[in-house]
């Protein structure tokens, strides 16, 4: 073996060792790396009342109630992961992206009665990017309701809005906002 | 435009850093080339770079 190939094998061996060490460590700490818990996890294993957790899920359509208590806006809404739902109460200004059907992460504590008291609400947007016109077209034609789930594939937008795009090319319009 | 301050800040920062890096690299390259040309002896057959 030349010195060069010996060095190469040494480097490869070190990288494999280091890689597996990193993988094992990440696997062991996996539950801590997770940024938020889902409502079903909270139900299954309720955290102690004094522990701050992050609760993540989708805002249930029709569950949002906004009121005002002494000038501070209060929002009460349900967060679901499809299996369970948790009612969240939050005092303060919600982020711009907050809406029914949006994924959110609420930071706070679980009350004894099972509801969640949030001190902070973050909006989590998904990987879909869509011009306003397309979104409105999909919604108007009833192909997609943003309150009930993720948008359809970008490749299917053309066929879904085909009836209108035949009349006016809606996809490449310059920004008119 | 909505969120204009954030957009301006993001683009300004990106272009600013890119400009600093490019200007720095250009000046360094120019100086190195000048110094190398000055000290390389004309008698020796070395290609100018």
């Amino acid at each position: 073996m030349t010195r060069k190939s010996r060095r190469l094998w040494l480097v490869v061996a070190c990288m494999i060792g280091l890689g597996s060490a990193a993988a094992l460590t990440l696997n062991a700490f996996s539950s801590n790396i997770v940024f938020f818990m889902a409502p079903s996890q909270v139900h299954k294993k309720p955290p102690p009342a004094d522990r701050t957790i992050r609760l993540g899920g989708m805002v249930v359509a029709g569950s949002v109630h906004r009121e005002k208590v002494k000038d501070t806006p209060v929002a009460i809404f349900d967060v679901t992961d499809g299996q369970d739902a948790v009612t969240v109460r939050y005092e303060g200004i919600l982020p711009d992206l907050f809406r029914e059907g949006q994924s959110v992460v609420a930071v706070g504590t679980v009350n004894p009665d099972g509801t969640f008291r949030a001190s902070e609400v973050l909006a989590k947007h998904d990987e879909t990017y869509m011009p306003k016109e397309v979104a409105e077209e999909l919604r108007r034609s009833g192909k997609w309701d943003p309150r009930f789930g993720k948008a359809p594939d970008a490749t299917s937008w053309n066929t879904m809005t085909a009836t209108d795009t035949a009349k006016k090319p809606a996809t490449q319009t310059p920004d008119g906002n | 435009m909505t969120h204009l301050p954030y957009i301006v800040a993001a683009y300004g920062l990106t272009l600013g850093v890119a400009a600093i890096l490019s200007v720095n690299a250009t000046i360094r390259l120019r100086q190195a080339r000048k110094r190398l040309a000055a000290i390389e002896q004309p008698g020796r057959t070395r290609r100018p770079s």
Partner: protein
Amino acid sequence: MNATQSLTARTGNLFHRYANPGRFLRMGAKLQPWLTWPALALSAAGIVCGLFFSPADWQQGDSVRIMYVHVPTAWLASSGYMALAVCSLLSLVWRHPLADLAAVEIGPVGAAITAVCLATGSLWGKPMWGTWWVWDARLTSVLVLFFLYLGHIALIRAFDEPQRGYRAAAILGLAGAIDLPIIKFSVQWWNTLHQPDSITVTGAPTMSTSMLWPLGLTTLGFTLGFGAIVLARLRASVMESRIRTILAASRGRQSAQTNPQTDSAAV
């Protein structure tokens, strides 16, 4: 072992052909305009397109335009480190002199780009998520990448004898490459506040074509720009080391002239 031997020898020969400084400088000078001008043109086109001609997102509004600078810098932060890791491998196994110089020059550029990626992400996160920063897996792993860059910059310059710095920094550069798959897959392995990738190798992009265009332009433009800046710095670095060699040699000649017993044929 025979196969690997000849492989390392052959690849070594291939790399070392470009180790000749004169040849590198000639090739670099030829390559430079092909990186610089397309980089400027594509970046300018992408930015104008992204700022003024692409549509606003249906829920993010115009803040989606930050994507056209954030995503290319994120891509370059990772690929720049990948380049650093490759240089580290060339340095450790083949003792390639140009790879060492390249590692010195990639570090600061990569660190600056990673800082821009973190800052633009923050500027996007504040209006959209409602926070400048969260400690989720994606953001944290990119911050770790930034610190890896800083560590590499410091380590490679830390020794009086450059060779020792090159070795130490190459080990850090290779070991730090572990962070790259963690960054890439963090959004799949753990739930994060950061969105999953919109553009994947396997699936169709979840993005409108009118937004993909400017994104592609800036990504290509920034990548060429990164290459152009690193190449310019590397050419300067090779010239500087040649200047040092010539100065050292002429100092040697001067001392030879003062005492003619030593080799005077050097002139």
